[in-house]
């Protein structure tokens, strides 16, 4: 049932969307500290969901040739080649050189060959966050995007009319309208990860989590995953990996916490994630209020324009 936190704040989304006795909320915990960038998730997703090819173009951005999450890419593995975070004391931080990549393509850094910085190759499989407060769902004018009983956010291909509103609403840039290939049955409609809704109805795991060789993508009850994630961060901190942090796990955050959350080894924006996303509908009451005021002013304006004038 709709409640005080329906637009912002901690919430169990399935009951909010009218489900009675819904199963526990399901989600992903993507632990990027064990991601090997194999892209099995990308392929398994495409195979299961009949997602067509995205683009055949080498991008030169390390091993990422999938570019981003989009209508033809429901999982996207980011690759970041990161030089040591602590440059040698006598070396100023290398000035960024624009050759298209973070370090790939950087000009000779002046660091002597013998000095081996703590180079890192970060990989992370990004996916729809299945937000607690999902802007895409809320702005959808057809009810195509809906909250499933598992608390996930799913597009109904048979309903969507391709208005594209969800695309602009998503604070993570996940959902997109499919542009091609020609002849594909879902061209023109919004597409994104469904958390394999059909598989979930049969107690199967989403295709990406099923395939992931290293359990970087873990599927399960969000409550339990959140606990597991906190433990994992604690373990990594004990091991001295102080960069480890969780992203999207806080039900108090701008989107009420995400159903798919992450353990990252750097700031979110390094991975192409917004550092502090807020669901746009949080401000919706205020927007309506301002619009009402403006509308009233306009009405008043027209009245004033006519008043006191003789034809």
């Amino acid at each position, binding site marked *: 049932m709709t409640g005080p936190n329906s637009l912002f704040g901690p919430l169990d989304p399935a009951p909010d969307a009218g489900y009675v006795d819904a199963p526990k909320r399901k989600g992903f915990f993507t632990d990027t500290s064990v991601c090997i960038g194999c892209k099995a998730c990308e392929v398994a997703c495409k195979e299961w969901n009949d997602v067509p090819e995205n683009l055949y173009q080498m991008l030169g951005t390390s091993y990422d040739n999938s570019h981003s999450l989009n209508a033809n890419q429901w999982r996207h593995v980011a690759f970041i080649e990161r030089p040591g975070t602590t440059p040698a004391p006598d070396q100023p931080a290398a000035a960024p050189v624009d050759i298209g990549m973070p370090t790939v393509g950087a000009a000779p850094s002046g660091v002597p060959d013998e000095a081996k910085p703590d180079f890192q190759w970060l990989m992370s499989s990004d996916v729809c966050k299945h937000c607690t407060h999902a802007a895409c769902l809320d702005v959808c004018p057809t009810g195509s995007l809906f909250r499933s009983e598992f608390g996930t956010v799913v597009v109904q291909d048979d309903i969507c009319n391709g208005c594209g509103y969800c695309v602009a609403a998503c604070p993570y840039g996940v959902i997109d309208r499919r542009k091609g290939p020609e002849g594909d049955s879902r061209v023109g409609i919004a597409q994104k990860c469904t958390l394999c809704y059909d598989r979930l109805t049969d107690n199967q795991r989403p295709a990406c989590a099923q395939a992931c060789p290293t359990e970087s993508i873990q599927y399960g009850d969000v409550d339990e995953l959140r606990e597991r994630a906190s433990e994992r961060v604690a373990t990594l901190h004990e091991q001295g990996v102080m960069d480890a942090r969780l992203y999207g796990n806080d039900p108090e955050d701008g989107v009420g916490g995400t159903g798919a959350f992450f353990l990252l080894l750097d700031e979110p924006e390094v991975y192409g994630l917004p*550092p502090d996303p807020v669901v746009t509908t949080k401000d919706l009451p205020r927007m309506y209020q301002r619009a009402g005021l403006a509308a009233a002013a306009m009405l008043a304006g027209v009245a004033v324009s006519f008043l006191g004038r003789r034809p």
Partner: protein
Amino acid sequence: MTQTHDGSPTRRRGSRGGDRIMVPEADFTSYYGRAIVKPAPWEKDIAFYLFTGGVAAGSSLLAAGADLTGRPGLRRVARLGSLGGLGLSVGFLVHDLGRPSRFLNMLRVAKLTSPMSVGTWILSLHGPFAALASAAEVVSMLPAGWQRIGPLRLVAVLGRPAGLVGALTATPVAAYTAVLLADTATPAWHSAHEELPFVFCGSASAASGGLGLLGAPVAQAGPARAFAVGGALVELGAERRMERSMGLSAETLHHGKAGRWMRASTLLTAGGAIGALVGRRSRLLSAVSGAALMAGSLCTRMGVYEAGLASARDPKYTVVPQRERVDRGEPVRHRQ
């Protein structure tokens, strides 16, 4: 800016000071400069719709006023403007869908959280009445003999009440489009949510008033002139305010395509308003001013539209404000 970051997630954390007011341009990190939020997939149609919808709404108001105050010339222009605006609006809206044949799916649900759904219902309410009023105007233009044909006569009779209902539902049509844009993750739109309704309502008033100036006899155009000038002032004023509250993404209103549109908008709107004021005796000057105001309104819509897209394409506008919040220790959290 965009070139600097095209494909290069630069990291200059070390240089970030705590007391800066503006973030130096290069001082943020991204993933190869790729966009975080996606630009709305809407074509220019949607900007045109913002304009035609505004014209339709404002015209509907003017038409009702003219009808009530006995300004048939103004009424005619306004009612036809309303009809034309509506027709074009629906056309643009449908055309911009990925699946135009599924347009009616909009009426499947009524979602308060979706400005598009709300707008659809508003339009669904406003449209028939405004259209009916316009139809009455068309009937009045027919040869007298025809006007006596039963159904047409009914239309003519219903013209005024329909026009009044249409007028009452018109301002939401003009205002909701601001919420439509603001209720997105597009930085330049969302950050403008306080003032954008005023900009859009002002713009709609200026454009519809401009249409009145353009089409109505000078003698009957007074209210349109007042409405247009008032709208133009509100628009210009609200736009300045809006830029202040938008923060970083305000710069998208000054760069590139959006910058050109916005500069044109200011010139045309201000010029149109001045022209409207000084040319109150001149049919020609009134018409030119009216056209300028309409053009200015269109430019505003184009400018806001382009600024939004530009702000979505450059991750800076998404990252920097959020990063600053976080670094200030003020991330958005619900805690009550």
